[in-house]
């Protein structure tokens, strides 16, 4: 290991009340892959009130080492203490790559850290891989750089971004985009506690009160998703989507248009501004299939599109297309399924 003269791959582990965010574990799995390809170690860092006990879980997903810092003032999250500790650690160990979840916390923290380090940062990457880069403007060659691939211009194009300055190469990735692998509880790794000191100014932002509710659904774990779009027509009609989902033992998804119309909550939104799903079966009902939606579900094993428009873009990613009125097709599907099982 570490045969090349570059730093390691790092993952920032987001946690709250000693529960690790799913996106962080997905990034540990992706980080493992990148570290292996580069021949370096995968290291993680986790901050909070009581986080030492989380280190073995992080190692089981693929980390070689976990840095942790514990303290009352590190929970709930505030920007400046986290920035200070991460920057201090990055300056000391000089990682090559630094991955953050594109969560509320990650999107607040990563830019602050990047700005302090004068590092490049790319938001919401949908793919990461290692490749060489030739900067045609400065005529410089960069070996083994992180290709940071992301949608841009409202999701209408895909851009590959490269950080050409000194390390770390920083990115954020949304939940559900990278695949989670099975943990290996026999994995061994190192653990190191970080010492830190905060100034009064760094502690000046105080969280007075906090209210959160559990997500009503976690579509990233769903095997079957029945999703409705604007073509469903009304909140009342949306019950039909729920009915089909109930019959098939599926979860309900939605396009942005259906969420914006108020027919269903944001937790159900699939696509670039919602969640990315990869179920065994995705049934898109009355979803025309804007590119932003398709990008969040095109990795599904099988896709059925029910739409009254034979030219709907959703059909370009579907395996099965049923062109017809969903108010007639869905009841038939429920009936067909019930008679088969």
């Amino acid at each position, binding site marked *: 290991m570490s045969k090349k003269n570059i730093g390691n791959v790092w993952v920032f582990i987001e946690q709250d009340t000693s529960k690790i965010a799913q996106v962080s574990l997905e990034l540990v799995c992706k980080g493992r892959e990148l570290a292996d390809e580069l021949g370096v170690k995968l290291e993680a860092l986790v901050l909070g009130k009581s986080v030492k006990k989380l280190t073995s879980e992080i190692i089981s997903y693929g980390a070689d080492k976990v840095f942790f810092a514990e303290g009352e003032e590190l929970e709930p999250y505030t920007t400046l203490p986290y920035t200070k500790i991460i920057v201090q650690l990055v300056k000391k160990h000089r990682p090559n790559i630094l991955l953050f979840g594109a969560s509320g916390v990650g999107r607040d923290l990563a*830019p*602050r850290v990047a700005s302090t380090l004068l590092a490049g940062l790319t938001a919401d990457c949908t793919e990461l891989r290692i490749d060489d880069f030739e900067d045609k403007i400065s005529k410089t060659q960069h070996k083994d750089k992180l290709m940071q691939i992301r949608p841009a211009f409202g999701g209408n194009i895909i851009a590959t971004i490269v950080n050409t300055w000194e390390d770390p190469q920083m990115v954020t990735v949304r939940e559900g985009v990278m695949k989670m692998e099975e943990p290996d509880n026999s994995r061994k790794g190192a653990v190191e506690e970080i010492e830190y000191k905060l100034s009064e100014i760094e502690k000046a932002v105080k969280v007075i009160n906090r209210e959160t509710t559990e997500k009503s659904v976690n579509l990233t774990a769903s095997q079957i998703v029945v999703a409705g779009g604007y073509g469903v027509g009304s909140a009342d009609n949306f019950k039909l989507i729920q009915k089909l989902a109930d019959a098939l033992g599926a979860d309900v998804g939605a396009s942005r248009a259906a969420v914006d119309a108020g027919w269903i909550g944001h937790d159900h939104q699939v696509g670039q501004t919602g969640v990315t799903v990869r179920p065994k079966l995705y049934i898109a009902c009355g979803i025309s299939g804007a590119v932003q939606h*398709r990008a969040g579900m095109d990795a599904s094993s099988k896709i059925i599109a029910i739409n009254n428009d034979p030219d709907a873009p959703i059909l370009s990613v579907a395996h099965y297309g049923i062109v017809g009125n969903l108010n007639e097709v869905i009841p038939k599907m429920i009936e*067909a399924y019930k008679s088969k099982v």
Partner: protein
Amino acid sequence: MKIILFAKQVPDTQNITGDAMKKDGTVNRGALPAIFNPEDKNALEMALSLKEKYNATIIAATMGPPKAAELLRETLYMGADETFLITDRAFAGADTLATSYALACCAKKIADYDIIMCGRQAIDGDTAQVGPQLAEKLNIPQLSYVLEILKINKKKKTIKVKRAIDGGFEVVEAPLPILLTVPEAANEPRPASAKKIMSFKKAMTGFELQKKHGDAIYEDSELLATEEAKLRKKNLWIQELTAADINADVERVGLKGSPTKVKQIENVVLGGGSLKNIEPSIEGISGLVHELIEDHILG
């Protein structure tokens, strides 16, 4: 109380029409109308509510080409007090780090601010990075995703806000000066005031003034100065700022100041299937359901 609003003029990526995409899948920027970045309008609305409540002064600034003056006129129509257009060829090609550096230089030039506000993110990049990076460059704290300003204590110089977090919200207290980013969910921006449109539609930059008078004014610096003075007197002057005006280090702005480079731009290529058409009849649908059960996709 002094508020600086940073806003951006963006291509309208939310309403991409047929000819906005070229055949090779890239964006035809020219075909997209330039609009006021939606969440920057939410930030302006929040600033205006502070103007009403605390008698704050709002200075609106944007970085962009000469035509971005249109956005600044819009801020005046809604209620901003003063405007700055940060414009210089040196700023072209900036990524979020170089952008936040330039905006920080502008904020330092304006000076003595209590609050800096901007939208959570711009719809052309959706990165949400410039706000936090700008706060870092100014060495002030940041509060992102602010839904509501609950209280400002002018004496103690503190602010209390409600901000969105994943799965809920939190109430936070912080010292001033501070940077706030505002999401769409925070409010409904007010429309432009008809009276203010009448008052400010003739607001312009030096660039626009020269354009209005044609080439003649280039040769008559006295006329130019007189016209500028007239506009300033009526508060119709949109101040242009170059890299030199804001004391920006040219090595840190534009493409030169940007660590990230675009390697390539591609059409969106999506996975997915060889489409099989299913008849919307009970026979067709039964056949499909049967096939999916056989393949263990439906249980």
